[in-house]
C-alpha cells in the first residue's frame, strides 16, 4: 500500500492511498480539500480507475474522460494533478 501527498500549484491538496497489482491500480482512494460536483462521483471515479495502468498519461486520460462523460466538475485540481499524485504513491 503506497501513499502520497501532493499540493497542486495554485490549487488544493491531494492525498492518495494506493494498492497495486502487477503494474496496474488495484484500488485507489483520492482524498483532499478539493471540490467535486457532484460529490458522489468520486467513488465512481475511484471504481473506474481500477485496473488502469500505472502510467501518468493513461490515468490522466481515464480521469478526463470520466469527468466529461459524467458531467463532473473538479475544482482545485485537474486530471493531470490527480495522475501526478497517484504516480507519486507508487
Amino acid at each position: 500500500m503506497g501513499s502520497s501527498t501532493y499540493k497542486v500549484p495554485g490549487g488544493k491538496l491531494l492525498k492518495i492511498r494506493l494498492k497495486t497489482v502487477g503494474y496496474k491500480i488495484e484500488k485507489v482512494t483520492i482524498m483532499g480539500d478539493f471540490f467535486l460536483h457532484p460529490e458522489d462521483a468520486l467513488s465512481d471515479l475511484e471504481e473506474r480507475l481500477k485496473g488502469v495502468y500505472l502510467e501518468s498519461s493513461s490515468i490522466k486520460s481515464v480521469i478526463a474522460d470520466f469527468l466529461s462523460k459524467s458531467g463532473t466538475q473538479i475544482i482545485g485540481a485537474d486530471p493531470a494533478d490527480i495522475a501526478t499524485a497517484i504516480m507519486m504513491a507508487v
Partner: protein
Amino acid sequence: MDEVRFLDLEIRSAHMNMALDEAIMRSIQAGHVPPTLRLYRWQPSAVSIGTFQGMTEEVDLEYCKRNGIDHIRRLTGGGAVYHDYGGEVTYSIILPNDHRLVSSDIIESYKILCAGVVKALDILGIDAKFKPINDVVTGGKKISGNAQTRRRSCVLQHGTTLLDLDVEVMFSVLKVPQEKISDKMIEDVRQRVTSVREVLGREVGVDELVVALGDGFGEALGIELVEGELSAAEIELAESLVEEKYGRDEWNLSR
C-alpha cells in the same frame, strides 16, 4: 426584494448542525420551506472535515476525545476547520437552483455568496475581499473559509468567520506531525490566518459578529431577511439524519 428565511444564532452539536443544513436543503427541495440563511455555533467545539478528506489523516481523534472536541465529516468539499465554541460563527445559506443568486459558474457563485461575509466584515470596520476559490481575506490573511455543495436542486454554502484564533489548539486538533509543529510553523499560520479580534485589536463579542453577518448578507445579497424558525418536520428530519448518518462512524470515518 426577495425574502429569505432567517434563522438567528443557534448553538448546537456538530452532528445536529450538519444534519440541519441537510434537512433544510431537503425541505427546500420538497417546497416545504423558503430559501434560508442560518447562523450557528458549535457546542462542544468541533472539527469538521471536507467530504473528501480522510478523518484519521487530518484529525488527532485522541486529542479530540481527551479534550471533549467533536469531529464530523461535512457534506461539502474543502478543508478541515476547527470550530472553536468561542472563536467563530458559522453561516449556511441554502437556495433553490432557480434562485437569482445562484450562478451555474461555481467560482462566481462563491463570489456572490461570500459577498455577505465581506459586507459583514466591512460593517465591523474590516476591509476584506473574496479570494478564489473559497476564501475571504483581509490584508492577505484568511479570515473566512467557505464550502459549497449542489444537491437536491439546491445550492448550499456554509462558511466560518473567525472571531478569535488559537493556533496551538488548532494544531493539536489537526494532525500535523509533531516534529513539524515548530515555532516557525505557528508563525507561518499567524501570517496566513487572522481573526476579527486580531484585526480590530479589541474584544469583539459574538453578538456583534452575528448582527454584522445578518446585516451583511441582507445588504450584499439584496435580500430581505425574515425572522423564522425551523419547522417541526425539519427538526425531526435532522434528528433522523443524526441517527442514520452524521452521528455514525460509517459516515464520519468513511475515508
